[in-house]
């Protein structure tokens, strides 16, 4: 009778393990897949542990220890994975928001993303003008010097 109960509990655990694995394959989202894998960790594993404790009563204390440990750690691990999903989503939203702020058109920059380009172009044009003026002065000085000797 005890063995029959034990095999029934093992089948319960196997059923929920199979349901959880099928859910991890089939479900469409990360968080729903986490939900399915939580079913394997609690219902499936606890069915297996209960069946093992009924079939092998001498190891019931170790199985109880393992069950308590899994009961403590499995929700914490699942919550850590879910928090990492949330945090990655937040970081992606921040990056998208910042790049959208950079490329919004204003009065000074009439088209998107033109602000940095305009500043760079202005300083580059000033550099070119200054270099041309310096070259012109040098050439006129050289010309005047040569003209003096000739």
């Amino acid at each position: 009778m005890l063995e029959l109960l034990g095999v029934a509990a093992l089948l319960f655990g196997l059923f929920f393990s199979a349901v959880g694995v099928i859910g991890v394959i089939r479900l469409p989202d990360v968080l729903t897949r986490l939900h399915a894998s939580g079913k394997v960790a609690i219902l499936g594993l606890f069915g297996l542990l209960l069946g093992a404790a009924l079939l092998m009563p001498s190891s019931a204390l170790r199985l109880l220890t393992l069950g308590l440990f899994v009961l403590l750690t499995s929700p914490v691990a699942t919550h850590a994975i879910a928090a990492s999903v949330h945090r990655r989503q937040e970081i992606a939203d921040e990056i998208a928001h910042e790049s959208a702020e950079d490329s919004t058109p204003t009065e000074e920059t009439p088209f998107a993303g033109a602000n940095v380009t305009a500043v760079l172009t202005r300083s580059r044009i000033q550099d070119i003008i200054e270099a041309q003026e310096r070259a012109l002065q040098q050439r006129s000085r050289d010309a005047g010097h040569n003209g003096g000797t000739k």
Partner: protein
Amino acid sequence: MIENALAQSAIQLILLALVILLIPASWRVVAGPSLPDRLAAVDLITTLLIGIIVMLALVEGTQVFVDMAIALAAFAFVGTISIARYISEGRVY
């Protein structure tokens, strides 16, 4: 060992089914589109391995395998927590 032959064969079949369940979980590790998917699938594989070790203890009739399952659960918890922190923050501590 379990004396009843029917219970023994049922335990062996359940062990075989749990080992077969490892295959789709490993597929999710390979094909998961994001990093938390793969991490959740690795966590699922570890949970299935704990169940497999408990079933192996039943088949062999050895209690030492349950201690191995406890150690595997402890190390899997630490690993899952640190990898989840790494893929969200970019550092472990």
